[in-house]
Structure formats: structure tokens, C-alpha cells
């Protein structure tokens, strides 16, 4: 060995170098993202001009031309249809409880959710300030206060509070049904409100929520049934799923209106309930196919590991396979639920006055003939806001459940 061998020069410092930083400047950002090539620059200029034109035209119309009285004069119709004024507090109670639960959940489970809680508070607060009607104002301010109280309570982050919040969400759906439908014609506090008086956004949301809550378990069962080794079960599931998927939604709605009474002779079933049944039956078939996709993505090794540990087949499905399969299809399911929400507007065809149906009746009022643009713009805005909320919520859920970081 040569004595001249030099030690390998060490790097001068053991300190790791910090990553190169780039100063953020507005001009730099604009250049990098919007003007980095000539065609990108051209595209940017053209798009900015088009957007400016569109915004100006819409703004001009919305501020100077549109006659928004058609909306303000009919707000209650849009919201609840013919739901009696004396029972209106029951719909408001649903809103207030929902806001309280949402505030509590944000406080308990979300970190740095200041944007969400600000929106949750500001929305009813601003509307409440603007509201002309006393009841509306106090109900909206009450909702904001309930959300704030829930959020603050949630900061305690106690285990029993989490249990309470979960129980609250589970109990919320039956609570809404009891509040809206009532407890019977003689009930002193909550007399029944016949469903033919339900309408507007209230009916749209009820159809959607009932559709989701009932089609979910039914769809999961159908998906499991389709994969079952029992030939009769799997054949029945396949037939059901394929028949429903082969038929337009409107047909299913009509079938539910006409056929359900034939299947259940002697029982008179409400028209709204029949429509709900149609929504559930339709949605379940699609849900089943989506869930089946998730089930197929689970590798065989998961079943084998579960069986090797001694789990029974039903335990394997419930504890190991379904949670993974459902998690994998959350985005698809939410997309399906958003579609369901918008599809409920087809119940107009069987004579129900949901948000869309109310829009039609409002347009028939002699005072507001020809105001299609205003009415449909408003309805579109309402559908848009709710769809956006659903998809934002699903992204939250996905991030929370992501365990493969």
C-alpha cells in the first residue's frame, strides 16, 4: 500500500444543506404559470378577455335587468313549499340542530378548520341580518349561535363528546323525520303534516337523504349478494341490479307510483313515500355496482389472512373487506349521491313539488310571468351550492381516512 494515499476529503460541513428556496413574487408566479410560452400567453390573454366579457354581461343582467322580486317574494315556497306556517319552526329546528352538530364535529375532529367554521358561522349570520322576517332572522342567528357553541364545546376534545357527536349524527335522520312528519293527527306538540304539503328545497333534501340512507345498506347487501356463492342469492341480485340499471329513472318512479299499491293491496301508501321508494330502489342498483368494484379490488391475501386468524366469513366481510372496499369507492359514491340529489328533480313528473316543481309553479304566477332566467338561475345556484358542499365534504373524508401516507 502506498503511504501517499490521501484520505478521502470530507465534505466541509456535516450540516445538511437546506433545500434551495425560491422567493415568491407575484410577477414571478404570473410568468411561470401564465406566460411561460407564447401559446400559453396567448391563451391567458384570450381567456381573460372572454371571462371579463362574461362577467360583465352576467353582472349587468344580475344587477340592472333581473327582477329578483320573483325570488324574494317566494322564498318560503322555494324553501318548504306549502308546509304550514304554524309548523315552520320544525323545519328551522332541523337546521339549528344540523348547524350545532356540524360545529361540534368541526371542533372535535378538524384541526385548523378555521375556513370551514368561518363559513359555517358567516352563512346563517349574514342571511339572518339580511332577513326581513322576524322568525327567519332569529332562526338563522340561532343556527349561527348553535354552531359557535358546538365548535367551542368541541375544543374540549373529550372522548364522551365524540361519542355524543356520533350518536347525534345517527339520531339526526330519525329526528328530522319525526319533526317534519309529526307524531300523529292528534299529537299536541307535533301534529302530523300531510306529505302533500311538503315541497321545495325541503322535499328535495328529504328525497336525497332518504335515498342515501336507505339505498346505502340495500346497495351494499346487493353487492355482497351478487358475489355470494349461493346461486339463488347471486342470481336474484344480478337480476335486480341489471333490470333497474336497464331502465330510466323516470320509469322506476312511475313503477313505484303504480306498482307499489299493487304489491301491497289494502295499504294506502303516500305519494311522497312512493317517490322515496323509487329513489331508493333506483339508487341501490347503482350503488351495488360501485361497491362491487371496491370489493373486487381487495386482494385475496386479505381474505386468507382473516380466515387463517379464525374469523368467520361474516366477520371477515364486516371487519376487514367492507371497510377497505367502501373507503376505496368514497369518491365514486359521493359522485353518485350528487347525481341522485340532482335527479330527484324528476319527481316533478309524478306530480311532486320539489325545488324544481316549485320553480314551475312560481313561473306560472301572473305577477312573474316570463322570469325564467331569474328563477332558473336561482335554482341552479341552490343545486350548485349543495353539490359543492357534498364534494368538499367527501374530500375531507378521504384525507382523514387515508392511511397510506
Amino acid at each position, binding site marked *: 500500500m502506498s503511504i501517499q494515499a490521501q484520505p478521502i476529503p470530507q465534505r466541509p460541513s456535516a450540516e445538511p444543506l437546506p433545500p434551495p428556496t425560491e422567493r415568491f413574487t407575484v410577477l414571478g408566479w404570473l410568468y411561470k404559470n401564465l406566460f411561460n410560452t407564447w401559446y400559453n400567453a396567448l391563451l391567458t390573454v384570450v381567456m381573460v378577455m372572454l371571462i371579463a366579457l362574461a362577467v360583465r354581461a352576467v353582472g349587468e343582467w344580475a344587477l340592472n335587468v333581473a327582477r329578483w322580486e320573483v325570488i324574494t317574494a317566494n322564498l318560503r315556497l322555494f324553501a318548504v313549499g306549502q308546509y304550514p306556517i304554524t309548523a315552520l319552526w320544525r323545519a328551522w329546528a332541523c337546521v339549528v340542530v344540523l348547524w350545532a352538530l356540524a360545529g361540534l364535529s368541526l371542533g372535535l375532529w378538524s384541526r385548523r378548520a378555521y375556513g370551514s367554521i368561518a363559513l359555517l358561522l358567516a352563512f346563517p349570520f349574514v342571511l339572518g341580518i339580511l332577513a326581513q322576517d322576524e322568525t327567519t332572522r332569529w332562526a338563522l342567528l340561532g343556527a349561527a349561535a348553535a354552531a359557535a357553541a358546538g365548535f367551542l364545546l368541541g375544543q374540549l376534545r373529550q372522548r364522551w363528546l365524540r361519542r355524543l357527536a356520533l350518536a347525534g349524527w345517527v339520531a339526526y335522520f330519525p329526528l328530522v323525520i319525526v319533526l317534519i312528519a309529526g307524531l300523529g293527527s292528534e299529537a299536541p306538540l307535533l301534529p302530523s303534516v300531510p306529505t302533500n304539503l311538503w315541497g321545495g328545497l325541503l322535499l328535495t333534501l328529504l328525497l336525497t337523504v332518504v335515498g342515501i340512507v336507505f339505498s346505502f345498506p340495500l346497495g351494499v347487501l346487493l353487492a355482497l349478494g351478487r358475489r355470494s356463492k349461493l346461486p339463488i342469492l347471486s342470481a336474484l341480485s344480478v337480476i335486480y341490479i341489471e333490470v333497474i340499471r336497464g331502465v330510466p329513472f323516470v320509469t322506476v318512479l312511475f313503477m313505484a307510483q303504480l306498482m307499489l299499491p299493487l304489491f301491497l293491496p289494502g295499504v294506502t301508501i303516500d305519494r311522497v313515500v312512493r317517490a322515496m321508494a323509487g329513489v331508493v330502489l333506483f339508487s341501490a342498483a347503482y350503488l351495488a355496482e360501485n361497491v362491487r368494484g371496491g370489493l373486487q379490488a381487495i*386482494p385475496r*391475501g*386479505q381474505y*386468507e*389472512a*382473516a*380466515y*387463517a*386468524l*379464525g*374469523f*368467520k366469513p361474516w*366477520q371477515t366481510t364486516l*371487519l*376487514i373487506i367492507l*371497510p*377497505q372496499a367502501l*373507503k376505496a369507492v368514497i369518491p365514486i359514491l359521493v359522485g353518485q349521491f350528487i347525481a341522485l340529489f340532482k335527479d330527484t328533480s324528476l319527481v316533478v313528473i309524478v306530480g311532486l313539488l320539489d325545488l324544481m316543481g316549485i320553480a314551475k309553479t312560481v313561473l306560472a304566477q301572473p305577477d312573474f310571468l316570463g322570469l325564467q332566467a331569474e328563477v332558473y338561475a336561482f335554482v341552479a345556484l341552490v343545486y350548485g351550492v349543495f353539490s359543492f358542499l357534498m364534494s368538499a365534504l367527501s374530500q375531507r373524508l378521504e384525507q382523514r*381516512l387515508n*392511511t*397510506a*401516507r
Partner: protein
Amino acid sequence: MTQAPQANENDPIIICRDVHKWYGHFHALRGINMEVQRGEVVVIFGPSGSGKSTFIRTINRLEEHQRGQIIVDGIELTHDVRNIERIRAETGMVFQQFNLFPHLTVLENITLAPIWVRGWKRDQAEEVAMQLLKRVGIPEQAHKYPGQLSGGQQQRVAIARALAMQPKIMLFDEPTSALDPEMIKEVLDVMIELAESGMTMIVVTHEMGFARAVADTMYFFDKGQIVESGTPEQIFEDPREERTRLFISQILSH
């Protein structure tokens, strides 16, 4: 409970007599005979496709055998579902691909079966799980998800998960074949410790160092049959069959 045939302590814990298995027309197992004593460590090796996995999986009935007899701890494997579930609860299995449950934390992976299959209280199951995690050397990972662990750590969790059921037998199907070289040792160390603690083990592996260190009996599989069996000394120093000698020299030359 009472009608279960109680196995004698000195009887073999696993008895396989003339076990056959077909996949369609393909004859995957052609008459396997094996007896495993309590506390014995068995190593099975042989070329790919020789039926090692198929055989080890018939012991907890992940695969059904079609002829012959398999008796585990005095219970014969038949179509009787209750027998199958009892044998599975007493037999731990570790897979090449780990097969941890990705939606559960490490701790939940380990406690799920004791809670649902054995009916333990959660606190008790978690205590046992933490002890096992210490035993396999990763107690600090208890609240992570499998996707956040290295392969070697995942396989050690898989071993802890199987041990949490307090099995009488542990089956390993190529537990280190999916691991990067630097992680093989950490898993083998756990298995060696387990073997020395007296666990009955059947291990499919080509880790000959492991076999030499802890195997009591080695079986060489080829084409669905046992070509040769014996102690590690016999198999390594003086194999009866030319095929065995050839195969060992091939894997040792790697």
C-alpha cells in the same frame, strides 16, 4: 368441548397421511406423509411450483385436500366448519406478502382477532399486543398504519398478529422472500427466538442458515412429492438423493 377427541401430549400434533390435491386436472400434491411432534421445527424447501405453499395451506384448510387424512391436534380436517375454525384459531400463519390489514393500525391488526374470535376484552388484548410488539422489537410503531412501515417491520407485525391468538402451531410460507436483503435478518431473528421458545413451526424457506440453526427436520419437495427428509446434518452433509444435493448446491451458490 367435551366430545372433542383430546390429543395425547406425546402424539404428533400434525399427522398427514397420503394427502392428495388436484387443481382441475393438475395433480399438485401426490401423497404427502408427514408427522410433526410438539415443539418440532420443520423446514420445507424445494423448487418453485413443487407444492410447498399448497401443502402448508392444506394444514389450516386455506386449500382443501381431496384424498388422505390431515389431523391437527387430534382434530381431523373435514368439511365440518366448526373443526376448521377451531384449527384455524390454534394455527398461526405468516405469508410471503405479509397481508396486514391496511385500514387498521398495527395495534388494531394484532388485537382484532383476539377480540372477535377469542372474545377478549379490549384492554387485555392491547396489553398482550404490546408485549408481543416488544418481543418482535417494534413497540414504538403500535399506532402507525402498515403502509408507514418497512417490509421487515410489517412482517414482524404479521408474526405478532399470528402469535396474539396464542397458537399451538405457526406456519410460515416464505416469510422473507419479499424482503430486501438488509431486512431478512431482523425477521429471521424473531423466528429463531420463537423456535427456541418451543413453538411448533412449519417453515417454507430457502434460508439455509436458518434451517441449519433451528430445524429439527427438513423436507425436500419436488413435483408434489417429498423427495427426501432428514435432519439438517443429513440433508446438508449426506443427502440420499442426487436431486436434493443438486438443489442445495444451487441455492447455496447464490
